[in-house]
């Protein structure tokens, strides 16, 4: 309890100074000063519930430029499962986001494009609709952009826009549906991404035990889970980052995850590792020296962001092992152990960038019972497994008849 109190004080102090700063930046009138004074106790109250609070998940945000429609969702579903949306027509979205593998891929690294392996863990599509930024380092700002990047990346879909667009245009059923949904004479690749994103916005789960509990059904959690919730929000401090409706603060942290052991002894993984340094625009020196995933650094280029990754949601995690950005841990028990040791593996190893490790990560001294309770509570973020029958894929058909070609030949 003491630790938590300390933490609260620190945050309280921080919020007060924030308010002060805000006050200064705004017109520092008497009124705003008094507001600060008033704000202090208010902040204290919000702290116990404040930003660090779990909330039930509501409907996902729908971007104004890509509204949902039944036709678009249905089209997006087929496209999601169509491997022709990729380089050699073998690797589509569902290839690395398999519904029966938690809409992810059940290995440490995602499988890559044929001839490659990926270098990070495949994240679940379920509830991805809520992320304002996609990918572990937040490099895509919408599902539409994520779909495009994944379909094109050299160790992912390795597709090129022009060829993928041509393929869709040669499938009569797609032509028909794209015309109905988007009103274009020919399917456009950007609308492929929009349809897929629309479908993904339907892959959400709002009726998990934790949602039902937070909405008032106190029987939705078991006693064990309720004890786990207390630990989650208290002694273990998970709530500091895993809060809000998505059980993530959407911020970037270095929590102490070490470099993947795959890079030590797997030649194919070493290839991808170096490619990623190259592809992410590292300096020559950075490329030569990097031995771990630098995470958010690739985007910010600030040294203090090395090894930081976006807090992932805890929702649906029962179905999405292994865990962490590099899939190093196979079970939720191992994840809890990892945090209980203060962000260290069983052998004591931790991040390659210890200077950036979050101060929030400290040994927790949880008892076995507490750890079990915590795992039970984390499981409350998952409802029923979401499985779908894979849609039948429409076939290609020639665009022109032989007679049309002969007529064109005659007219030359």
């Amino acid at each position, binding site marked *: 309890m003491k630790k938590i109190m300390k933490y609260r004080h620190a945050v309280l102090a921080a919020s007060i100074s924030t308010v002060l700063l805000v006050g200064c930046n705004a017109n520092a009138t008497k009124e705003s000063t008094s507001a600060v004074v008033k704000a202090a106790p208010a902040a204290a109250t919000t702290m116990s519930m404040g930003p660090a609070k779990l909330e039930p998940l509501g409907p996902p945000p729908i971007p104004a430029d890509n509204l949902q429609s039944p036709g678009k969702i249905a089209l997006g579903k087929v496209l999601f499962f169509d491997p022709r949306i990729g*380089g050699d027509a073998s690797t589509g979205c569902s290839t690395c986001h398999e519904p029966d593998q938690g809409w992810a891929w059940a290995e440490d690294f995602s499988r890559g494009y044929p*001839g490659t392996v990926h270098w990070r863990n495949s994240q679940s599509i379920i509830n991805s609709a809520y992320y304002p930024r996609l990918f572990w380092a937040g490099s895509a700002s919408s599902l539409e952009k994520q779909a495009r990047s994944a379909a094109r990346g050299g*160790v992912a879909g390795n597709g090129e826009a022009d060829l993928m667009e041509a393929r869709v245009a*040669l499938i009569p059923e797609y032509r028909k549906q794209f015309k109905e949904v988007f009103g274009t004479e020919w399917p456009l690749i950007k609308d492929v991404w929009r349809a897929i994103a629309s479908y993904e916005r339907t892959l959400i789960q709002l009726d998990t035990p934790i949602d039902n509990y937070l909405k008032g059904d106190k029987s939705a959690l078991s006693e064990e889970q309720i004890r786990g919730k207390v630990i989650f929000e208290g002694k273990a401090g998970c709530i500091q980052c895993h809060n809000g409706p998505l059980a993530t603060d959407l911020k970037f942290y270095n929590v102490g995850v070490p470099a993947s052991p795959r890079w030590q002894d797997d030649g194919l993984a070493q290839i991808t590792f170096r490619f990623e340094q190259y592809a992410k625009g590292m300096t020559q020196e950075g490329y030569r020296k990097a031995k771990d995933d630098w995470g958010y650094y690739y985007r910010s280029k600030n040294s203090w962001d090395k090894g930081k990754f976006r807090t992932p949601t805890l929702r649906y995690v029962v179905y999405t092992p292994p865990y962490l950005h590099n899939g190093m841990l196979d079970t939720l028990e191992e994840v809890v152990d990892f945090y209980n040791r203060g962000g260290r593996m069983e052998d004591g190893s931790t991040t390659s960038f210890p200077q950036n490790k979050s101060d929030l990560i400290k040994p927790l001294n949880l008892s076995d019972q507490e750890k079990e309770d915590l795992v039970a509570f984390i499981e409350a973020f998952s409802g029923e497994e979401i499985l779908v029958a894979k849609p039948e894929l429409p076939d290609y058909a020639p*665009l022109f008849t032989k007679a049309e070609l002969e007529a064109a030949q005659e007219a*030359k």
Partner: protein
Amino acid sequence: MGVRVKTGRTLLAIALGLSMAVGAAHAGSYPDIGPLPQIKINKAKAELGKRLFFDKRVSGDAAISCATCHNPKEGWSQNQALSDGYPGNGHFRNSPTLINAAHKKSWNHDGRIGTNLNDQTREMITETYIMNMDMRIMQERFKQDPLYVKMFKDAGYGEPSNGSVRKAIPEFLKTLTSRGAPFDTGKMSGAAKRGMKLFKGKAGCISCHNGPLLSDGKPHNTGVPENFDVFLDPNNHQAFIAFTMFQGIPNYMNLKRDPGFYNITLDMADMGKFMTPSLRELKYSAPYMHNGTINTLAGVVDFYNRGGGKDSRKSDQLKPLNLSNKQKGDLVAFLESLSGDRLTSSEHVWNKSYPDEYPAIQNWQHARN
């Protein structure tokens, strides 16, 4: 003009005789046909290029190599009308032989690469419907292959890199030069000699097929009919659409013909023009024309004997030739005399196996990437 030594004099004599026989249409003086110039080759670089040429790891999904569509056993081309292309799609043109590619000034049937083989190599490796390789991945693959690490170093390239791949493969291609063709060795049959006379005379072939490569390196519209399989097979058509889309061809979705050189100029006058191919080393690289629509050399001769195909923009150099069957046979004999060794021994073919997997770099944590 006395360059070509022995053959030069005979050719000159023949050429003189011909220009009189042919009359105005073919009276122009054309660069002499004759032996190809020697190219200096760096052995270590060419050897590296050879290993790269036959290595499937040069393609995105590691399923095809350069040799897949330029197979030594099929005349360094593919004995099918349309090239395979990358897995998951087809192609819309015929794969040309690579023998003598190093002597050309431009590449591809539409001549869209007119700089050097370095650029052509990059084009083939990275083009989506051909090898679909992100060369940054390719570079890292080769840094993970100890034999390549040694070969790049021995070739003076330092560590494996994209740039060096683009140099080494062209160096290898330089080794693929006509060797032992009767035309070059002077061991032409009587029929071939008569055919050569027709080639330069009555048939007028030399007006486009001239110089040591027997090509003027220019685009012409000869009215070759479309290969409908380009459009009737969606695998081929998707590659065609991707290509024409990328080239900025207007109304590419409704296009029912290969625009050829028009790709480059977007000038309708160039619609349907294709680069004059070299006539060397065609014996084993059937079928013929940019889209593989003619199966035999005899068929090609027939095509031109008819004055080419039907196209409102067809070159007016093409006229019915009125060749007799015997003359056509002689012309084919001459064309065949332009082919020499098949270059299928280990001198030109990498016969050794490639590793099944990439060994891990030892002591990775402390090794410099």
